[in-house]
């Protein structure tokens, strides 16, 4: 690469509190316009903000999960600019005394992304543009946000996307946000400048705002790289700029002219007493943190012997990992349980939102029991799959779907006899297999399985058939 990209991200995350940051209106998404509002969040004269404790705690939890220092005293500040979605003509945010500083994320390529800060702020309302008008809905106004700011440590779009995914998994895991980019509960601004590899000084950067999908983040970075590189190669200067990304064209477009660059005139918010968390509060919050996805992944693979690809999938969803752990405890075989969930259950619980909600009819203990029977050899994997299919429909326990007969294993003599019988009764597949067609074996396996009504273990059957066939 002729140029090195130097990228920093500012991510806005909506906290999943029940109510808004300064009033008791609901934070529910959607709803008829202006029905989740009150004098406070519409900035009526004489209204006053009252800070939501859970918003502060969720912000502190996010900071703890990302390794930040949490400050006992942080100050809200007014950030002034005029736009119709901001009813007070200022956004209550934080300026020089944010809640969290420091912290960071280590990517899979070993590179460390440092965070500058995390601060609390309020969201603005939503605008609907028509040809000649703006329509304004303040339902979203006042929803609590955290803004997570990184140092300009990224060097590629892939790194940026991985970081965003990690943020998403982590914040979901600790329950402070659902981080759904398509619903707007997670949005990203990208700051990007270019420089010659080896240079330490930063080039002039442009900012691309309000990216609402991982692909948009990547595409905007790629586009900006191209645009800035072209300018620099032609000997021209990159102008410091604020840009918007157009998903239709894949290009970024300049949003505003420098002349009217805002002076935010920050000053401490006089209506809100400084948020004070004691050291004790912070420690209590730290202790309440659930296990974070990265350490859970290590535990599954190193201690429980789960395959890494299975573990990555399980740790992506908090409820799935809780389910898995419970089932694994009961079944006694973590690896097989993990694999079962990822193959059998994920097959029909297939969308992101279903997996996040994770409410299978088969409860964890029942699954664990079922797989425990497989581990002790009491039933075959096929029997287990069949029983699970029924449990997935109607819930219940293993014993509801497994008869005494199923429980009986097939003795070695029976197995040998049945295999011999199958070979006799199915001469063509047997001949094909002997002639070298691997696939033909499955017909014989199937015949034995049918005979045993699935009680036999398919692998054992296959092994037996391989044993008897060639030499016949």
């Amino acid at each position, binding site marked *: 690469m002729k140029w090195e990209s130097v990228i920093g991200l500012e991510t806005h995350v909506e906290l999943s509190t029940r109510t808004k940051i300064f009033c*008791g*209106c609901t934070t529910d998404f959607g709803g008829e*316009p*202006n029905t*989740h509002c009150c004098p406070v969040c519409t900035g009526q004269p004489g209204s006053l903000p009252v*800070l939501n404790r859970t918003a502060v705690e969720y912000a502190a939890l996010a900071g703890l999960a990302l390794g930040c220092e949490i400050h006992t005293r942080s100050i809200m500040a007014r950030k002034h600019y005029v*736009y119709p979605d901001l009813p007070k003509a200022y956004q209550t945010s934080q300026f020089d005394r944010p809640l969290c500083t420091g912290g960071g994320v280590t990517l899979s390529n070993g590179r460390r992304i440092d965070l500058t800060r995390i601060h609390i702020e309020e969201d603005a309302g939503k605008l*609907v543009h028509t040809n000649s008008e703006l*329509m304004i809905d303040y339902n979203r106004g006042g929803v609590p946000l955290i803004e997570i700011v990184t140092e300009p440590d990224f060097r590629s779009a892939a790194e940026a996307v991985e970081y965003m995914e990690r943020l998403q998994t982590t914040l979901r895991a600790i329950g402070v946000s659902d981080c759904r980019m398509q619903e707007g509960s997670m949005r990203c601004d990208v700051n990007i400048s270019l420089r010659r590899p080896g240079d330490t000084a930063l080039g002039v950067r442009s900012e691309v705002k309000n990216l609402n999908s991982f692909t948009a983040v990547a595409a905007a970075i790629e586009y900006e790289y191209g645009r800035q590189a072209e300018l620099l190669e032609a000997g021209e200067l990159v102008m410091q700029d604020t840009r918007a990304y157009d998903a239709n064209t894949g290009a970024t477009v300049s*949003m505003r002219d420098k002349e009217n660059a805002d002076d935010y005139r920050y000053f401490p918010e006089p209506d809100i007493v400084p948020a004070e968390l004691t050291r004790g509060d912070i420690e209590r919050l730290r202790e309440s943190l659930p296990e974070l996805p990265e350490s859970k992944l290590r535990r599954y693979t190193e201690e429980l012997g789960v395959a890494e690809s299975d573990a990555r999938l399980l740790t992506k969803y908090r409820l799935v990992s809780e389910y898995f752990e419970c089932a694994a405890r009961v079944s006694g075989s973590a690896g097989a349980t993990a694999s079962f969930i990822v193959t059998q259950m994920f097959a029909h619980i297939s969308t992101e939102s279903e997996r996040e909600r994770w409410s299978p009819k088969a409860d964890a203990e029942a699954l664990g029991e079922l797989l425990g029977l497989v581990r002790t050899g009491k039933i075959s994997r096929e029997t287990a799959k069949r029983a699970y299919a029924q449990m997935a429909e109607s819930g219940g326990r293993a014993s509801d779907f497994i008869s005494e007969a199923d429980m009986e294993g097939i003795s070695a003599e029976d197995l040998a006899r049945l295999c011999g019988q199958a070979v006799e009764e199915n001469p063509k597949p047997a001949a094909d297999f002997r002639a070298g067609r691997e696939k033909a074996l499955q017909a014989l396996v199937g015949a034995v399985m049918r005979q045993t009504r699935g009680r036999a273990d398919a692998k054992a059957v296959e092994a037996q058939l391989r044993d008897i066939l060639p030499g016949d």
Partner: protein
Amino acid sequence: MITYDELRKIAALAKLSLDGDDVGTLTADIGDIIEFADAVAGADIPDIEEAGAEERYPLREDALAKSSDRDDILRNAARSRDGYFVAGKTGRRAD
């Protein structure tokens, strides 16, 4: 003292227009007020250690309260439609 140009920039930030004003008088008046405010520069005071809050206020519990009736929210708006506030002619987003 304040120059006309500085005043214009401040007025733009404050979303006030200067036409209709006697700009000369306004510039002079604001200049006088700023001069009056300049007196603080003469105060020689040490930095005082910020006192922590004497009492910790309990923050608000995250409990749902009844929102306002939409009719009330829109009651004082001169223009509204389909439940939205309406502003004529698009402006540019400042941030």
